[in-house]
Structure formats: structure tokens, C-alpha cells
């Protein structure tokens, strides 16, 4: 190298005090047109500037940049960069994968990134999961159009939905909750299977799905999305973030959609999906103080109306038994505030590593939710109103080099006012009615603690316990633990186990029961649901194809101690042998699910990714005390293949997804068949093309390309006021081929 070079070494200093050579840091003279980069040992050599003294700038992502005044040609500059403190986002490099298994988290977490969210139309959250084998998306019934997910072979009711770590879509918001989060509002989704953290409460049984929204601090003054499909569903989404000063920032999110047309593709006289209108608004604020304190708060409001039933139902006329109709109206409001304060100044790094102090924080969260659901299904009326307030406070700290802990307290107040005016007819057209009052108030106060032992990047162990006092069910103890072990950089083992509790919202959880001709018979002594989930996974990353390929295998088992069963087949075993009743009662025997899944991903070539996954589920429940049967309408397996190819700079992106949906056991509703009957396995194909222009993405796609539909989603569609009328036996799409197009416009600041 030339003698007039300036040379030196760049090191990085982390808050815990570690000092390591920094490779790939950039080094350049102020005002110069060129730069150099450090090598693996942090060394660099840069040609001397035209004149001394000169300013040398050294920078690296995640570290604070440094400027040095260099007086003369030197060859042993020793430069140390401090790790930046403000940067707490996960930096994704290279091409962003759509769906991937996170290497970082302790619990096995599938991440659906922003890129993954644009793979499909993703009008709402339900559709965002079509590319995930672990989650099955279906309908609760053919009338309400409520989308349901299943995880680990169990209803989505047992999954805890989180809005940036705050529980969301609980209670009465649950049945239609998936359509209340527009996919375009989100930045990413994390799906964590199995027993998770105790920090968010005891309600998580099969897993947690966390939604990360677009952030106030991202300088995008305007994002606009417009969507239209062949059924004339029209949707508009707007996001606008504003940074008012260095400290205050805000984002406004808006969604309006309409499904204006009645379609009856299968000619059974029933509208395939309800005519809908939705207006959804949210406003979120962030304040970042100089001392590291953060304040976040926001509000969200929603109004949605659905009209469904027979094509010739006229909502303006008084309700009678001439035509079957249904109206569902939902109003939702949420407000929250989150405050995080670091205790003491950020500690300067020290050389003696074992005594490196961890920073301590306290955090406080308050949350209020109002939800009102007013509906009728034929002659049945169901109206409910929910008020929920929660408070959460926690303290986070650590000791020594490897230990950290969180301790906290929580309080929740749940008030439900629900009335079911059940009306049913027998075979001789005689009317019966029964008013069921489901009012309930729950007050829960709890203390919790979680300890984390993180040994280098090798082993992480998290153990948590919470003790909650519940006004109806007394003491609830929730222990949970997770373990992550790196055999090497490329082979990772994870295991988790723990307990969860949940109070069933009988009607809201099983809204489809209303779209039948049956009487709903609810036992008086319903218990709180309780289950244990254990499982683990092994992920292996290996160099194959253009980048690392990965294979991941996981297994989970959930065992219920208490469960509320909704049973349409109890008449088969017990008198009165009356098939016109839905029985809701406590589990007496066993109820479990075993789920086994394999995920494989590879990049066969640059910008070409392939994901393949297969899941097998065995879910059985003892109905009518001791009849252990496969849970009805639960798919035994799902196979998935997703291919994505992008041209250079992602100017064009092509996506193809193939799903093979497994068989489900069909419930025996009228003692027609002896033994078990199963729905067929069937494939569904999706395809989408996206073209990127400057600031604008245009996409065109098709869902359900083969136009696969269930022939008879509504049983006794011609006689909707008979006791046999039932629209809950849904195992395939209700809508045929859906061609859609949309645009996304982003204005960058």
C-alpha cells in the first residue's frame, strides 16, 4: 500500500462492555467522493486527503458514527465506536423473505413480514395466513361470513391475539375480529406456537399471534391502497405518519370497505358471503424523550354492518318465516396508553464484564375496550355489550452477566351484557322461545414474574409464573417455561410448556350456532377452560441453493383439564334423542390435540424462493362424557407450496401458492349415516403478479383459481325454519374464483 495512506483499526463497544473489531465499517474523509471499508479484523487503509488536518468519518449501522480530526498521515489510528442506543428495530438485510422462521426468538416464531403481507390480496388478517401451514382459515358458518382460524388443531379462540403485545380481539370482538385488522395497516405478524410468555396474561393456550402496525416514527407521510375484485368488493386503506418534532410522532390509519353485491354462486338461495360495509379508524402517537422514556397511546374505532340470508330477504319488512335473513352490526372502540421509563442513566460500558450492569426499566399500560354486537339470525336475536379495562405494570432488571427478570402486577375488569332470545320451530312449525341471559362480570388481579437466563448465544431459558385471583374462579396459577439451545449456529432446539386458562364466551365463540334451526341448550355450571400445552421444535439451517436453506420440525400437544364443549351430536348417545338441540356443557373425559409440522424453505436461485410445509393434526375430545371422537370439521392435514420469483430490483414479482386441504370429520346431524363421514381433501391455488413503479405498486391476482366450492354449505337451505337447517358444516371455500387488482402508493419523506 502507498506510504501516504492513513491506516488504523475500528472496534465496536457494546453496552455490556464487549469490544470487538468491526468489519465492514465505512471510513471516509469529509467532503470526499469515495470511501473504504474495514476488513474482517477491523483494519482499513485510506489514501491521504489533499491537505491536513482533515476530518475522518467512521460509521457502521447500529453504532454511533465518529468523526476524527487527523493532523498528519498516521498508520495506527485506534477508533472505537459505541453501540447506538436508539436503534431497537430488527434490521433485515438483503432481500426480505415473505414468511420465515425467526432465528432470534426463544419461542418458535413464524414471521410474516411486510413482503409476505403483500404476497396476497390480504384484505384482512384471515387472508394473511393463507401462506402458513400451521394456521387453517375457515368460516364459522355460511351466513355470518365470520372467518375463523385454527392453530394446533384447535379453534382460534385458544390463540391469544396481541396488538403490539396488548391483548386484542377478546370477548365479543372475537368472532369477527380477524376482519377488523386490515392487512395493509400492518408491518408484520409474528405467530408463536405453544405456551408463550406469562406477561400478557393467562389466556394463551395454543399460541400467540402478535400484530405489528405501521409505525408513527416511519417517515411516510402518505400510504394509499385501493383494491377491487370481481365480486365488486372495494377497499381503501390510508396510512399517514407525521413526525412533528424529534420527539413526537403520530400515525393515522383509515380503512373503508364495501361488499355491495349479493352473490349466490351455488344457487341454494342463500347469499354466499354477506353484504358488508366497514369503516375503521385508528390514531397512534409516540413520544420519545431524551432520557430514553417512551410514551405511546392511541385510539381505534370501528363500525361494521353485515346483511345476509336468503337472496329474497327484505330487511325493511317485519321478520317472519317467509324468507330467512340475518343482520349483524358491530361497534368497537379501544383506547390505550403505554409508558416505559428507564431507571437511571444508561450505564457507561465497563471493562470488567461480569459486573456489567443491565439497565432497568419500568413500564405501565392501561387499556379500555368497548364492543357492541347486535344481531339477528332468522328469528333468533343476539345482542351483547362488553366493557373491558386492564392495567398492567412491570419492572425489568437484571443482575450479573446472564440474568434478567421481569416482575409485575395486573388488573382486569370485564363486564359482559349478553342476551340471547332463542327462537326455534319444531317439525310441525310450532314456535318455541327461550331468553338466555349471559351477563357476567369478571375481576382479575394478579402478580407475575419471569426470569431469563441467557448464556452467551448458546442457551436461553425463560421461566415464568403468575398468580391471579379471579372473582368467579378464585386462584389461577399459571406456570410457563421456554428453552432455546443452539447446538451450533445452524441447529437450534426450542421447547416450551405451560398452562393457560380462558372463560368461554359461549355464543360469541360459536356464533355459527345461531345460523341453525336448533335450540341452544347451555348448561348452568360451565367451568373456566384450562389446558396444558407442551411442545418443541428443531430448526436446521444449511447452505444449499443461493442462500441458506432451512428445515424445521415441530410437535405440540395440548391437553384440556376443563373445556366447554359445543356438541351437535349428543343426541346420538343420550336421551332425549333429539337432534334439534345444540348442547353446551363441560368436558368430563379427555380432550387433546397433537400437531406435527415440517417447514422447508430454500432459494434455488437469486430472487427465487420456495417454501413447502406439511402439517398433521390429531385432535380428539370425549363428547357426551366418554365418547372420544375426532373433533368435527378439523382438518387432519394441510400441505402448502409457495413459489416466489422476482426480477432484478423486484420490478416484477410473481407468486404462486398451492394448498392441499385435508379431510375433516363431518358431524352427524341427523343420524343419517353410521360411522364417520369425511369431507374430501381438495386443492386451492393462488397467484399474484406485482409490478413496481416509482412510488407505486400495482398488483393483479386470483384466489381459488380452480373455482373449488362446497356444493351444499347450507343444509336444508330450502327450509331454513326447520330444526334441520344448519349452515355450520363448512369445510371448503364459500366463494368461487376471485380475481382482484389493487394499487399501493407510498410517499417517502
Amino acid at each position, binding site marked *: *500500500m502507498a506510504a501516504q495512506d492513513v491506516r488504523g483499526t475500528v472496534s465496536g463497544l457494546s453496552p455490556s462492555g464487549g469490544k470487538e473489531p468491526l468489519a*465492514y465499517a*465505512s471510513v*471516509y474523509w469529509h467532503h*470526499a*467522493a*469515495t*470511501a*473504504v*471499508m474495514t476488513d474482517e479484523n477491523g483494519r482499513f*487503509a*485510506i*489514501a491521504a486527503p489533499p491537505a491536513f488536518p482533515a476530518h475522518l468519518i467512521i*460509521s*457502521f*449501522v447500529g453504532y454511533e458514527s465518529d468523526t476524527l480530526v487527523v493532523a498528519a498521515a498516521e498508520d495506527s489510528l485506534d477508533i472505537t465506536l459505541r453501540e447506538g442506543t436508539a*436503534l431497537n*428495530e430488527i*434490521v*433485515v*438485510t*438483503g432481500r426480505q423473505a415473505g414468511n420465515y422462521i425467526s432465528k432470534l426468538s426463544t419461542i418458535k416464531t413464524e414471521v410474516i413480514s411486510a413482503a409476505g403481507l403483500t404476497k396476497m390480496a390480504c384484505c384482512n388478517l384471515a387472508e394473511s395466513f393463507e401462506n402458513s401451514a400451521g394456521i387453517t382459515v375457515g368460516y364459522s358458518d355460511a351466513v355470518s361470513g365470520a372467518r375463523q382460524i385454527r392453530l394446533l388443531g384447535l379453534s382460534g379462540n385458544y390463540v391469544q391475539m396481541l396488538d403490539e403485545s396488548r391483548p386484542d380481539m377478546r370477548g365479543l370482538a372475537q368472532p369477527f375480529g380477524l376482519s377488523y385488522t386490515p392487512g395493509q395497516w400492518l408491518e408484520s405478524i409474528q405467530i408463536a406456537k405453544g405456551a408463550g410468555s406469562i406477561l400478557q396474561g393467562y389466556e394463551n393456550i395454543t399460541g400467540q399471534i402478535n400484530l405489528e402496525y405501521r409505525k408513527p416514527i*416511519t*417517515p*411516510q407521510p402518505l400510504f394509499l391502497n385501493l383494491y377491487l375484485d370481481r365480486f365488486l368488493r372495494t377497499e381503501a386503506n390510508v396510512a399517514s405518519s407525521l413526525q412533528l418534532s424529534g420527539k413526537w410522532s403520530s400515525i393515522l390509519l383509515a380503512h373503508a370497505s364495501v361488499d355491495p353485491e349479493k352473490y349466490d354462486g351455488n344457487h341454494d338461495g342463500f347469499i354466499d358471503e354477506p353484504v358488508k360495509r366497514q369503516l375503521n379508524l385508528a390514531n397512534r402517537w409516540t413520544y420519545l424523550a431524551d432520557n430514553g422514556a417512551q410514551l405511546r397511546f392511541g385510539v381505534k374505532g370501528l363500525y361494521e354492518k353485515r346483511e345476509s340470508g336468503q337472496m329474497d330477504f327484505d330487511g325493511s319488512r317485519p321478520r317472519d318465516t317467509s324468507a330467512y335473513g340475518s343482520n349483524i352490526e358491530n361497534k368497537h372502540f379501544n383506547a390505550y396508553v403505554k409508558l416505559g421509563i428507564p431507571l437511571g442513566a444508561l450505564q457507561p460500558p465497563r471493562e470488567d464484564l461480569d459486573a456489567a450492569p443491565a439497565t432497568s426499566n419500568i413500564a405501565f399500560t392501561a387499556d379500555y375496550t368497548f364492543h357492541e354486537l347486535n344481531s339477528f339470525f332468522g328469528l333468533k336475536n343476539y345482542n351483547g355489550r362488553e366493557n373491558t379495562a386492564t392495567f398492567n405494570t412491570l419492572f425489568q432488571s437484571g443482575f450479573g452477566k446472564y440474568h434478567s427478570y421481569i416482575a409485575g402486577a395486573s388488573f382486569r375488569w370485564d363486564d359482559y351484557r349478553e342476551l340471547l332470545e332463542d327462537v326455534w320451530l319444531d317439525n310441525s312449525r310450532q314456535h318455541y322461545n327461550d331468553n338466555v341471559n349471559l351477563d357476567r362480570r369478571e375481576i382479575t388481579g394478579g402478580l407475575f414474574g419471569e426470569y431469563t437466563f441467557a448464556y452467551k448465544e448458546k442457551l436461553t431459558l425463560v421461566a415464568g409464573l403468575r398468580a391471579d385471583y379471579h372473582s368467579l374462579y378464585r386462584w389461577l396459577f399459571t406456570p410457563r417455561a421456554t428453552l432455546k439451545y443452539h447446538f451450533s449456529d445452524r441447529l437450534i432446539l426450542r421447547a416450551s410448556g405451560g398452562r393457560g386458562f380462558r372463560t368461554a364466551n359461549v355464543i360469541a365463540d360459536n356464533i355459527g350456532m345461531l345460523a341453525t334451526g336448533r335450540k341452544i341448550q347451555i348448561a348452568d355450571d360451565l367451568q373456566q377452560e384450562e389446558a396444558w400445552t407442551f411442545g418443541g421444535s428443531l430448526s436446521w439451517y444449511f447452505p444449499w*441453493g443461493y442462500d441458506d436453506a432451512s428445515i424445521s420440525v415441530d410437535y405440540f400437544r395440548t391437553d384440556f383439564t376443563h373445556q366447554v364443549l359445543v356438541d351437535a351430536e349428543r343426541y346420538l348417545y343420550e336421551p332425549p334423542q333429539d337432534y334439534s338441540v345444540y348442547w353446551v356443557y363441560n368436558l368430563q373425559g379427555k380432550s387433546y390435540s397433537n400437531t406435527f409440522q415440517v417447514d422447508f424453505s430454500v432459494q*434455488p*436461485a*437469486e430472487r*427465487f424462493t*420456495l417454501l413447502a410445509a406439511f402439517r398433521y393434526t390429531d385432535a380428539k375430545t370425549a363428547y357426551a362424557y366418554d365418547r372420544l371422537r375426532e373433533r368435527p370439521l378439523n382438518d387432519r392435514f394441510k400441505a402448502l*407450496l409457495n*413459489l416466489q*420469483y422476482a426480477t*432484478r*430490483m*423486484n*420490478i416484477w414479482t410473481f407468486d*404462486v401458492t*398451492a394448498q*392441499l386441504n385435508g379431510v375433516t370429520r363431518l358431524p352427524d346431524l341427523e343420524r343419517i349415516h353410521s360411522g364417520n363421514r369425511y369431507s374430501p*381433501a381438495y*386443492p386451492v*391455488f393462488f397467484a399474484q403478479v406485482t409490478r*413496481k*413503479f*416509482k*412510488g407505486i405498486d400495482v398488483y393483479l391476482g386470483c384466489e381459488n383459481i380452480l373455482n373449488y366450492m362446497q356444493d351444499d354449505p347450507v343444509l336444508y337451505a330450502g327450509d331454513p325454519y326447520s330444526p334441520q337447517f344448519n349452515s355450520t358444516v363448512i369445510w371448503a371455500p364459500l366463494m368461487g374464483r376471485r380475481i382482484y387488482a389493487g394499487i399501493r402508493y*407510498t410517499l*417517502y419523506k
Partner: protein
Amino acid sequence: MKTITIIFCSLFLFAAAGYGQAPSKLKKNEAEVTFIVNMSCHHCKNKIENAVPHEKGVVDMKVTLDTKEVWIKFDTTKTNKEKLVKAFEKLGYTARELEIKN
């Protein structure tokens, strides 16, 4: 079921066909350059990826946020390094050519 098997198999074949494509080499009138750009967050990367590919003469681009590197392949008859540096400046960034020393 047979058609399903055929469809799945052909998808796999399609996948296999893409395997082993070598990265394209420089064609006539093409040149490459690596810039160090003062970007520091994912948003900056998105912003650059949204705009620079649509600059005249840009054939290919890769952004590596960790090292602040932006690699660009361009058509020398349509643009040059100075114009590319200006394109970054228009977005509010400074771009310095990375000197590769051997």
C-alpha cells in the same frame, strides 16, 4: 387426486428448473459501482429501493443496510457514476464510491 399430484409435481419441476442459475455477468456497455450511502434504518433502504431502480440506466441494484453498501449495475450509454451520486443526493443521502483495494 391425480391432477393434484400432477400440478404439485410440475410446480416442483418449475422450482428445480430455476436452480443453478449463475449470476449474470457484465454485458457490453455495462459497468458496476458500489457506493457507501449514509443510510441508517430500514426506512432509508425502502426509500432507496423505491426510487433508484427507476433512474435512467440502472440495470440492477442491491442494498446492504449493515455495511451501508449500495451496489449498482448500470448502462454506461445512459448514465454514469456522477448522475447516480446525484440521484442519491436528490433523496437526501450522500453516496461515496467504495474504493476496492487489492
